[in-house]
């Protein structure tokens, strides 16, 4: 099951035009976004970290299963794959523009950093999941190592996007810094798994930095 790379928000139309999805794909996406809103709404109302963890514990698995099914559907068609590609070009600064004051600092930086990191990971993995079996297997392996944190980061970012997009009622301001910090933390753990697998430079020639 591919369950880790569903874009957390709808892609915006680009110069090349919006992807043309089939009626079934459009309906399944609509259902997915409705389910996401229903399941993740409690996250937008948490007031302390313990509550966030408790909600996450119950929300991650069902969300991942829906996300996996919609991901498989989209990867199977050219329009679906284009939709996923378009989703990777979403500018998180635009998403945060109207709520920058609400996000504050360090919340805004944490949100932007985590979102951009998720985009970077997806840009790496998406072509592999469409490519040769060996590459796909490697992508699955790495995702397996970072999978739980990756899922948690996606769920938390989705909850933040529900707030930023005014897509959920009755959210609380206290939830925002908690969600920003959690998204930052989970994506940092994901990055660390990837960093740990990166090869060291083959050429070594110590170049000192002078004092001052």
């Amino acid at each position, binding site marked *: 099951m591919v369950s880790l790379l569903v874009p957390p928000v709808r892609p915006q139309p680009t110069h090349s035009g919006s992807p043309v999805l089939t009626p079934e794909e459009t309906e399944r996406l609509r259902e997915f976004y409705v389910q996401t809103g229903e399941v993740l709404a409690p996250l937008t109302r948490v007031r302390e970290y313990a509550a966030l963890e408790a909600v996450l514990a119950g929300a991650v698995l069902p969300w991942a299963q829906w996300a996996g099914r919609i991901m498989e559907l989209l990867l199977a068609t050219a329009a679906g794959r284009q939709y996923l590609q378009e989703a990777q070009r979403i500018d998180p600064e635009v998403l945060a523009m109207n709520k920058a004051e609400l996000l504050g600092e360090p919340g805004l930086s944490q949100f932007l950093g985590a979102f951009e990191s998720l*985009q970077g990971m997806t840009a790496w993995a998406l072509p592999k999941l469409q490519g040769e079996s060996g590459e796909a297997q490697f992508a699955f392996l790495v995702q397996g190592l970072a999978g739980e944190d990756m899922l948690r980061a996606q769920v938390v970012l989705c909850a933040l996007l529900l707030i930023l997009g005014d897509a959920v009622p009755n959210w609380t301001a206290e939830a925002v810094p908690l969600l920003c910090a959690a998204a930052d933390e989970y994506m940092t753990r994901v990055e660390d798994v990837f*960093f740990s697998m*990166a090869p060291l430079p083959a050429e070594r020639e*110590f170049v000192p930095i002078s004092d001052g």
Partner: protein
Amino acid sequence: MDSAAYELGFVNRAAKKGYDDLLGTLKPAEKAAFDWALARLRKNPYPAPSDPARLIVKVGNQWRYRVTSRYRLLYLIENRRVAVTAATHRKDAYRNLP
């Protein structure tokens, strides 16, 4: 503690160029954060009890320093030398894999 306990540098010229190129794109506050990070590494490249959570973490064969919410430093510690292997935006964590 000795204020310059470790010799600080880059693992190679490509790493230095990558750092210089990145710094050219940063805001003053972000550059200052890198300056502060390098000064810290020169003094002590290992995690300290007073550090924020996950500021410095061992990742595979190297260390990762969380410079800001968006930027990271990767480095090696060899004897009394700290050799920076990369200064990077966190979204680029995925670029060096097969």
